């Protein structure tokens, strides 16, 4: 009940996080939005991690080589797969949101979702296989 406002003050709703991510009983589009926001936050965190890892290069070849050795560990590759999902989903849904948000194809936003995210899932599977075998 913490998303209800038991007050007469038109104050800020008490649980914005809940209103974004509580997808119980909601439609596919809210799921798409919540997942987009989740992957967006994940990607942003990754971007900073990525930059800090790249900065290892400044400290010479040894520290970089030891990182690369770690990066080849299967558990690390699994993280790559999670990242890949975030990238392809956010990109595909992002294209849909950008199009629909400009009024392009909004009558068919669900079809757009299934087609674009479908393509993204194919890319994801191919990519995931390549990560472990390539």
């Amino acid at each position, binding site marked *: *009940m913490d*998303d*209800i*406002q*038991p*007050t*007469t*003050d*038109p*104050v*800020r*709703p008490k*649980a*914005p996080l*809940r*209103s*974004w991510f509580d997808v*119980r*009983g*909601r*439609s596919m*589009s*809210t799921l*798409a*939005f*919540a997942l987009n926001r989740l992957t967006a936050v994940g990607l942003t965190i990754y971007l900073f991690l990525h930059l800090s890892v790249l900065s290892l290069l400044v400290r010479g070849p040894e520290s970089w080589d030891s990182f690369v050795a770690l990066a080849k560990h299967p558990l690390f590759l699994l993280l790559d797969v999670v990242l890949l999902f975030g990238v392809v989903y956010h990109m595909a849904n992002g294209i849909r*949101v950008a199009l*629909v*948000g*400009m*009024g*392009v194809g*909004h*009558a068919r*936003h669900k079809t757009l979702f299934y087609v674009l995210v479908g393509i993204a899932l194919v890319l994801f599977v191919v990519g995931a296989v390549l990560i472990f075998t390539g």
Partner: protein
Amino acid sequence: MVERDIDFKVFRYKQGGAAPAYQTFRVRCDENTTVLVALQDIRRDQDGTLIMRHSCHHASCGTCGMRINGREELGCVVKVFDLNTSTVVVEPMRNMPVISDLVVDMGPFYDRFNSAGMPLMRESEFLDEADVAEGLEAYMRCENCIECNLCVSACPIMGTDPTYLGPAALAAAWRVVEEPRGLDAKPLLDWVDSQNGCWRCHVAYECNEACPSGVFPGDKIMSLRRELTKRKFRRLFGR
């Protein structure tokens, strides 16, 4: 006639009273009992202090909006048996201050609505000039809006920022832009062209799902954006 006992878990809150809590009432229902009628039965037979809004009992006045098992619904047209649950959870709409039990303060909703040019909202379905043009099955009109606030309750973005104009008001604005009838649409477009106007929406389309009256406010927001995008491009190329 089949009758069954159904538990209604109802959100209770009184201004200045104790913290909000749920209270469960058992009500004998048959296949015609709607959630609103069950609530009225509770009020009549079990607890006269239970407060809810209603008027028409047939999905036209838009006053009985509430959340039933977590979904935005008009209580007057939801049959209890259709829900297929032995406990029915009834809560007030979200994103609005609760005044008492199931009643929310609709003030902010109407305020936003009025500035969208309210006078145009419901005219015309029966006017001659509203004859459906050739090639069209029917006009999709925002006159359909019954101002129930369900879309505002369903919208995940209202939860981010209460100053967001919200789906119903934006849909009303689009109605005026789409068919200005002599009004100047420019100030209205300027009004919605802001951070708290149509650009705040994140395309979750939950408003479309919640609307009991075929307004499709999400689509109307995208139409506003298309119009604004067109105008911006035109300005960019000096036309």
